[in-house]
């Protein structure tokens, strides 16, 4: 029972950029073969019924609230949500209570994660102790303990001397540093993006220029240090030329964006709906369009859920006081499919950004449909319509902006190393 054959599948191959019918064979947890016709024998045959079979999603930047706030999300609940959403690898954030900033905490978290979650969990560590931006963490020991990247998440390291040293040190170890490009001065206290909408609602707002300033600063430090760097979320048109120049100049830089910035804009906040409060704040429609275009061109590399669980109490507050963030492990794929149905991005491009590129950036062999790659797969029907009920989510926290939204696309099954971890009822 080790060989499983998927027949009548629509194979989404982000590496080749193809979307074509065929079969795929997995053996002992890895992809053993694929083709268009002449499928081989196998112990188990899965008839995909013409639905899509793609590499499982690799999601950089998932917040699981262990340690500290398990009532918001545990590794168990996040893992089930990931499996239900077709996410086969989560790279989790260190912005917990306390921050994951020592090898001891990281080892504890990694052990918890791998016991409790049915999907692959890779743990990221803080870049500075307590995410305070003063002293770098034990980057070497943390890497030995399994840290895949280093980030202070939405705490920008304001002291450029501290950051330049951390980047230099990280470079000597080949560590990946993830930055949050945002000028801390301009963005202090902001709950919205500056412009007509924020002014009408009377919300403190930040200019989209703050993102470009943050990115420009980080790029200058990369030129100094040569570190490996990934920008967590690029969400504005104005930041894109700087990113393009940095890539052309040969810096080791990649950039991501969040599913919410790709599918929603500032007007969705409407009458102070706090489930739409994210960080950075939702942007103007022109920015959203520019980011989609940058994804199509490959200038922006990855799409993340930026899954951020918040309990009801944190959100049932006046907009300025309410916590930022949205859960998205289970809505990442159906929301991304909005871009497919709108004919903005094709499926291989989406999976390049959701699976292939993030896997490559983390040095993983997954994210591909190639022979020899791990059999981390998602089988989904891209057309199945449904209305999202937030209370049906597997996440402990229900703070999704898509509550009541009409979405299209459902995961039928998720496989991690060839084993089924989720099957639709």
């Amino acid at each position, binding site marked *: 029972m080790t060989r499983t054959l998927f027949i009548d599948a629509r194979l989404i191959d982000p590496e080749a950029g193809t979307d074509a019918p065929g079969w795929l064979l997995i053996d002992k947890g890895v992809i053993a073969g694929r083709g268009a016709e002449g499928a081989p024998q196998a112990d188990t045959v899965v008839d995909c019924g013409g639905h899509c079979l793609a590499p499982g999603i690799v999601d950089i930047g998932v917040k699981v609230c262990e340690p500290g706030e398990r009532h918001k999300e545990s590794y168990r609940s996040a893992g089930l949500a990931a499996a239900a959403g077709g996410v086969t690898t989560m790279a989790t954030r260190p912005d917990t209570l306390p921050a994951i900033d020592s090898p001891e905490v990281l080892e504890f978290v990694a052990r918890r994660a791998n016991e409790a979650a049915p999907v692959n969990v890779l743990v990221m560590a803080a870049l500075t102790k307590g995410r305070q931006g003063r002293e770098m963490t034990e980057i070497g020991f943390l890497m030995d303990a399994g840290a895949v990247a280093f980030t202070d998440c939405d705490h920008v390291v304001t002291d450029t001397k501290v950051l330049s040293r951390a980047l230099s040190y990280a470079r000597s170890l080949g560590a990946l540093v993830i930055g949050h490009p945002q000028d801390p001065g301009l963005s202090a206290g902001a709950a919205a993006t*500056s*412009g*007509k*909408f*924020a*002014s*009408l*609602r*009377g*919300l403190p*707002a930040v*200019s989209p220029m703050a993102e470009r300033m943050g990115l420009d600063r980080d790029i200058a430090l990369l030129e100094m240090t040569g570190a490996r760097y990934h920008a967590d979320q690029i969400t504005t048109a104005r930041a894109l030329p700087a990113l393009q120049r940095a890539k052309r100049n040969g810096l080791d830089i990649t950039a991501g964006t969040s599913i919410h910035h790709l599918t929603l804009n500032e007007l969705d906040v409407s*009458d*102070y709906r706090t489930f739409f409060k994210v960080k950075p704040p939702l942007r103007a429609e022109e920015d959203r369009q520019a980011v989609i275009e940058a994804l199509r061109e490959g200038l922006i590399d990855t799409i993340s859920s930026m899954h951020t669980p918040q309990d009801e*109490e944190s959100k*049932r*507050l*006046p*907009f*300025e*006081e309410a916590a930022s963030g949205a859960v998205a492990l289970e809505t990442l794929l159906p929301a991304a499919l909005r871009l497919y149905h709108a004919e903005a991005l094709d499926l291989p491009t989406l999976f390049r950004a959701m699976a292939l590129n993030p896997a490559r950036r983390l040095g993983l062999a997954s994210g591909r449909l190639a022979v020899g790659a791990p059999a981390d797969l998602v089988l989904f029907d891209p057309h199945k319509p449904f209305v999202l009920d937030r209370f049906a989510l597997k996440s402990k926290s229900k703070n999704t902006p898509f509550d009541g939204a009409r979405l299209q696309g459902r995961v039928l099954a998720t496989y991690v190393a060839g084993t089924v971890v989720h099957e639709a009822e």
Partner: protein
Amino acid sequence: MSFPHAHLLGIEPLAPENITAILDLAEEYVTLNRSDTKHGDALAGLTQINMFFEASTRTQASFELAGKRLGADVMNMAMQASSLKKGETLIDTALTLNAMHPDLLVVRHPQSGAVDLLAQKVRCAVLNAGDGRHEHPTQALLDALTIRRAKGRLHRLNIAICGDIAHSRVARSNILLLGRMESRVRLIGPPTLMPAGIEEFGVEVYDDMRAGLDGVDVVMMLRLQKERMDGGFIPSEREYYHRYGLDAEKLGYAKPDAIVMHPGPMNRGVEIDGEIADDINRSVIQDQVEMGVAVRMAAMDLLARNLRARRAG
């Protein structure tokens, strides 16, 4: 009388005929308030709670007087002193209130959108008495009534709003109301006190006060908060007064019969010269206070009619 609203949360949801409905009824209350009896029964039997999460003397007194003149049982709750300090959330406050069966709830809160949030959770008519830098609808309505009485109309007027537009809920509500009534609004102030994207509201923006005042019918001054005076938004109080304080020389650029307004409380010698504020030929600042009571009576009357109609079935 056209006023199909359950709450008065802002000017934004109001159609021009809704605004006119409030102003027309307020005219009747101006007459009542000037009579000897000063008493109506439109709110008899109803309970009005004034919840002020931010200190206020004039607005709270105006709402209290308006409610009492129409026969409501009025209670004031000074929220900044009580439950907020004990960590109670706004939602819990709303649930507590529901148990007291109020009919009219007047709320001021330092956060934009907080009054909307409260209105979603309580079972009574809610009046926004100012939320953060979002809206202050009764102030815009009393300003409109003052202008209409002084100028005979609300359309085709040139109205300048001067000062700290960025942090002002009064400015936002007035921009919305005056635009809706088809007057032309000019905003005057230093760029540091001007909100982003404000040009898209259909207003003209000036950083030169003399150019901005040229030929206007109405000059509306805004209060400059003390905490914004020192270096953060403007270099100093005296430089602000020099460039943006309303004095006789600058007022000379407006029409000869232009009126001067201020929502109060004034900083004499910061945004307005004391003599202009007191000039009975130009200043309508005291009228604004009088109109405030009448407009609030009218707004609560209309909301109470809708509330009673809804409850009747």
